[in-house]
């Protein structure tokens, strides 16, 4: 695409910019609060902003529902779409790809790290049973997968990766409150670098609030968000291995 393609939010007519907002303000409900909410909406680029609802939530707090027409538009032709696993292969293609391009079984070590105890996400990717009707990596004949489970310290994960000669390390982070995942994910990268193996592995993060962009910023090769399927992850790993010539 080279020609510009600008779009706006849509309510009931093209480019009407219709957007709904809700938020709480730390001020008692009343004319001042209403004016503040409107002002905020205007700063966000809303025209014809209307306070559809204002209510006191408790002493010193009020809640708002706002509708308005957002003047901002997005040029689709200039967007950078960065998402891992865009071109996925299926179960058979992936195994064939490994056989053909790498020629040996690959090793994948996975864990939900830190104090995070949410295993369902990483289990969905790794375990036999899989997710959304797709097998997990354990079931792939050309993949050895180890799932270390939850609340795994980064140090333990690194040690296991070394022991298993991991080609790929998969980290799940589900709890993100107060950005706890950021130092945790960062620490792992630092440990791998200290260990001198960062460049030898495909390093992948995932979780409901993980985006590809965030993961790359933190020094990962890819990030996978909600709804990820095993084969998206496997496709990425094997392509990345071949591209970076990690298979030997």
């Amino acid at each position, binding site marked *: 695409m080279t020609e510009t393609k600008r779009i706006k939010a849509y309510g*009931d007519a093209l480019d009407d910019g219709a957007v709904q907002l809700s938020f709480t303000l730390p001020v008692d409900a009343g004319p001042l609060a209403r004016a503040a909410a409107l002002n905020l909406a205007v700063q966000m680029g809303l025209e014809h902003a*209307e306070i*559809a609802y204002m209510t006191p939530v408790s002493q010193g707090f009020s809640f708002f529902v706002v*509708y308005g027409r957002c003047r901002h538009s997005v040029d689709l032709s200039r967007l950078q779409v960065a998402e891992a696993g865009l071109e996925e292969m299926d179960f058979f293609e992936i195994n064939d790809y490994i056989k053909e391009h790498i020629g040996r079984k690959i090793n994948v070590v996975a864990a939900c790290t830190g104090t995070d105890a949410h295993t369902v996400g990483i289990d969905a990717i790794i375990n036999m049973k899989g997710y959304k009707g797709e097998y997990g990596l354990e079931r792939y004949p050309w993949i050895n997968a180890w799932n270390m489970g939850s609340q795994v310290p980064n140090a333990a994960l690194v040690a296991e990766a070394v022991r298993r000669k991991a080609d790929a390390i998969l980290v799940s982070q589900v709890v993100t409150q107060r950005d706890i995942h950021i130092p945790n994910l960062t620490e792992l990268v630092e440990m791998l670098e200290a260990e001198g193996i960062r460049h030898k592995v495909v390093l992948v993060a995932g979780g409901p609030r993980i985006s590809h962009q965030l993961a790359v910023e933190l020094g990962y090769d890819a990030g996978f968000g909600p709804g990820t399927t095993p084969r998206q992850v496997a496709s990425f790993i094997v392509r990345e291995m071949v591209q970076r010539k990690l298979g030997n």
Partner: protein
Amino acid sequence: MKLNLDSGLVENCRAAAQKIAADVQDFIRDKTTVAVERAILRLLGINDAADGVPLANIVVDAIAARGELNLGAAYWVGNACKQLGLSPAAVAQQVAAGELDLFALPRFAPEELHPYLRQLARPGLQRIADRRREREEMLARLPMGPAPWLYVIVATGDIMQDVVQAQAAAEQGADIIAVIRTTGQSLLDYVPHGATREGFGGTYATQENFRIMRKALDEVGERLGRYIMLVNYCSGLCMPEIAALGALERLDMMLNDALYGILFRDINMQRTLIDQNFSRTINAYAGIIINTGEDNYLTTADAVAEAHTVTASQFINEQLALAAGLRPWQMGLGHAFEIDPDLEDGLLLEIAQALLARQLFPQAPLKYMPPTKHMTGNIFKGYLLNGLFNLTSVLTGQGIHLLGMLTEAIHTPFLQDRYLALEGAKYVMNNARHLGQELEIRAGGKIEGRAREVLAKAAEFLARVADIGLFAALEQGMFAAVKRSRDGGKGLEGVVMQAQGYCNPFLEEMSTELREAQRNDGNKAD
């Protein structure tokens, strides 16, 4: 779920409503209106316009201006056709062009012309029958899902945007699409012509807009393998004309209430009741399901205190519908979920009311309206209100289920509002699909008690109306707390006493066929 109701009271209600309807029929029998006459011309094929003015209006106005409408527009147009060997459309064109003076021609005696008029009516009747058969065939091929059928409105004001929104709604699971009318159309004494893109709070009802939307819905229906029904508003000063256009363009449902225009648009009651009868006859013949407007009472009156007026009005609408040849499956009798959400045990009363309607009119599909007046800018709470409404509907087996919009208090629906409404309704109705079959109402409990109370009040109310007649009841403000005088309101000037020799060839032919069908219904067990 079953309520134990007093069947004697139910009979009383029906008997009173029957008397009310019979009185109305007596009154309207020898009258016509400009709108009825225009509808006849439209069915005769006069659907063009000259300089934006519909030919039907030009011709009827010309006849009325001469004070000759009492023989019926069909007589004058038919006379010209026969005298000149022209089609009705050609006659209308010439009248509009000022090339033909209907009154300058020689005249057949009215009675002499009637067989010819019946002849002239054939193609119109045939076209309607074809549309009906078309619908039946499509429904057989593209069956609809289980009731409650999900009904959403589109209301952008622009028929082209309406199409986008309607097709999207169908994809999201809507069974029925209503194109809401622009404000003000109901008070126009003509039906605008052509495709329109500039309504407010709705889109003009025009024959071309009907066609455009019908085509769009057929398209998406084929794609989805489900027939998508199309609805418009057969009310206001052009009620019968819109019925005619809807019949010609295969609409499937029509908002059509005996009293709505009187109460909420201040249209003259004589005019409305006459128009209503012919429009319903056309709807009946076209196999169209009508939606009555009892729900509107509750947008101004209190839903707990005035619940019985809804029930009473349903009985009246039922009897007037029967009188116009409609069959029970065509009666989308209206009611609504409008009790103050902050009332303790309000849901029990809603269930009582919904179940009462269900039981009183077992064969009617029932049109169930969502909460509107208690919807606020709090879209979240509103979404939940709609959730309990959806639940009540599936629990009590309603037929035509209008979806509430979380933004009801804010704007006519956005695409996402409709998407969320459909998603919510599908979730609740699927998740509670057979709940109504698994629960029983405690005998002698609050729910049953409430239903019995509403029924008793409705019976009393109907007895009073039957006593004084519908006109007097309207004058006394017995419905929706609105008082209307017999000769007040808009459109009385369009009411005309029929002369000896008057002829409405469509009404005659349709009525004959419809009576026959009703007689067959009567033979079947209820």
